[in-house]
């Protein structure tokens, strides 16, 4: 896991400017982003260390060159693919954050069914559905037939497990990277029983 970090480590050693971080929610519940915010008042310290680029936290909608991209959620639709590819193209280090991004997680539970079954259940046969039809507005991204973990669509450098990873895990990760240290978690941060 750690081997991939060495480039960025080298570059950050003795670096004065801030680390540029972007985050994106794909098909997840936003819980991972909420967990990041759970670092509470440490966020003041964090903004001394990092500068946020595109992220729902700042509501910046376009991405520039970044050091780190944090991705929450699995890949479920065409938009997710676009976003993910854009992040991959712009971030030196791309991190899968949380079970959904790492394994597909909760959204991937639909993989046990055909997409057709899912959509018909939701929009045609479901209880209380009026005007039954599968929505086809061009504004609505098309669903992929299966939900994928992000590493099945782009190359991923790092995985932060957890549903969600705790605020302390985010904190440890970002501060280690910002300091140019090798990321290392105490057992308590990656232990889930």
């Amino acid at each position, binding site marked *: 896991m750690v081997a991939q970090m060495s480039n960025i480590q080298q570059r950050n050693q003795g670096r004065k400017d801030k680390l540029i971080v972007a985050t994106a929610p794909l098909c997840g519940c936003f819980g991972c982003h909420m967990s990041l915010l759970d670092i509470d008042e440490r966020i003041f310290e964090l903004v001394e260390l990092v500068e946020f680029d595109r992220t729902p936290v700042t509501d910046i909608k376009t991405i520039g060159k970044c050091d780190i991209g944090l991705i929450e959620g699995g890949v479920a639709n065409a938009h997710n*693919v676009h976003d993910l590819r854009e992040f991959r193209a712009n971030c030196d280090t791309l991190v899968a954050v949380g079970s959904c991004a790492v394994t597909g997680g909760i959204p991937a539970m639909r993989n046990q069914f055909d997409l*057709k079954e899912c959509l018909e259940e939701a929009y045609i046969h479901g209880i209380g559905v009026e005007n039954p039809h*599968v929505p086809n507005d061009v504004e609505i991204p098309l669903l992929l037939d299966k939900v994928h973990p992000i590493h099945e669509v782009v190359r991923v450098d790092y995985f932060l497990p957890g549903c969600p990873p705790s605020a302390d895990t985010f904190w440890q990760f970002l501060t280690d990277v910002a300091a140019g240290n090798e990321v290392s978690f105490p057992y308590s941060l990656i232990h889930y029983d």
Partner: protein
Amino acid sequence: MQDLDSFLHGLLAESGDTPDRLLQHLIAVQKQYSHIPYDAIQVLSERLGIPPVQIYSVIEYYAFLHRNPRGKYDIRFSDNITDRMLGNRLLMQGMCKKLAVEPGIPRDDGKVTIEMTSCTGLCDQGPALLVNGIAVSKLTEMRIHKMVGLIEAGVPVGKWPGKFFIVEDNIQRRDMLLNKRLIKGSALESLLVKGADAILNDLDESGLRGRGGAGFKAGTKWRLCRDAAADEHYVVCNADEGEPGTFKDRVLLNSYADSVFEGMTLCGGIVGARKGFLYLRGEYLYLLKTLENTLQERRDANLLGNNILGQEGFDFDIEIHLGAGAYVCGEESALIESLEGKRGIPRKRPPFPVTSGYMQKPTVVNNVETLLAAARIAVYGGDWFRSAGTPESTGTKLFSISGDCERPGVYEYPFGVTIRQVLEDCGALDTQAVQLSGAAGFTIPPQEFYRQIAFEDVPSGGSLMVFNRQRDLLKMVLNFTRFFCHESCGFCTPCRIGGRLMNDLVEKVMVGYATSYDIHELKKIGRVLQKSAHCGLGTTAPNAVLDTLQKFPGTYSRRLVNKSYEPAFNLDKALEVSRQLTGRDDEEAHLRLGN
């Protein structure tokens, strides 16, 4: 058909109601009813004192046991790479089509099921299949056509033409072991005349090492078992022979079984065991009857049973246990679990079986060939044996040779023979690679054909598959990674997950989506398996991938896409269902390939 209750009661009365009988009973029920009915599970649970969930888990574990009915004709095509090279896929597709049946799903009228199974050990006379557990060799379109007719006409398998079931020994080269016949009982007489210590010394002097792969000294193993204090000792003959491409034990059990039993009895006499087991892989069911007959002949000749050869207190008998389609049960501790009626999950070692084996008692587990050789050494002496071979690998060894050669079959060579010599003898031309020691073994390129087969150089459990230059080696690799995925017992994560990941990555290479990053991942995961899997299945599973990556890099590199990463599937195609359901075809309804 006999009603279930009376069948089960007969079974329990005849062969016992202790928990260790579970697997053997399940195999019998499966055979009779083509599945394990719910009611049978309840009865067995009550009578053997095993909770139903545990019985379910045993059924789930073994590939030849099923909770749902199979067809009346239950057909399994052998799917080793050698079967594939002989066209098994097309034959199976043809049969499915003619019988109007989907692979793995019983036909609506319950008549037939067809699916693939791991190597059935008929690589020298493939493609092969099992019908209701019995092997059919040398499949051709004609043969399939006839089988389809017999099935549709409802002719019982017992009445099918005998020539379908002929399995030839195909012994192509004999040396000291196969040339020297053993007079029935002579090894036991030798034991009675010379005494156990003298025989153990002979074994030590012979240098005989285990023929099942690991190469542990047989004399040392027997001595360790004998010296382990316990009220019971056991001898187990490992006839699970599941390593793809290996079939020499099949031949020994067919034509030299008496010597194998002699070796087991000899071992029993030396270590003080009263009972031995032959663990016969389910795929060799067709050998069972002759093996049972051979045992009976030996009992009649007072070579088994009580007071063998009139020696007071020399009591030993042998029972045959069947496997049910699980390769890992060839691993000695998994085999012992299976003998005890359980799922074949490898045990923690140490303790080794010699001190804590069957029922936690000291147990010798030896390969078929090891036991056969031991019996001969007891008669002809250690010097005789070590007159052939190399200093560290004495004697001769049987090799199962298959694949692209003119004369596949069993070859006996002294250890130390070069691969080139073997290839010449079996008529292999234009050879691209040799897979030595089965799927778990080594992939050898032509520049290494000078190497010697011996523990000092390349060791071998006795199989050699030949691939000529027309073959795509990646197909071989993929066949092996699938095999290991299928055969992983699932106990440890590196093998259960890592094996699957490796298989998926090799598939990705095959379909042309892989990048150099995926190759890096393959190597990384392979090393994790080698280092951390719990048993030999997992630690050897990555061998073929890592060997070919190193020695045949072109097999991979010519298929790679020149990108940092590419998904293993077509993203645009993954939107097709949505496009159809919404009727959209605008730009946003498509994804370009690549990143």
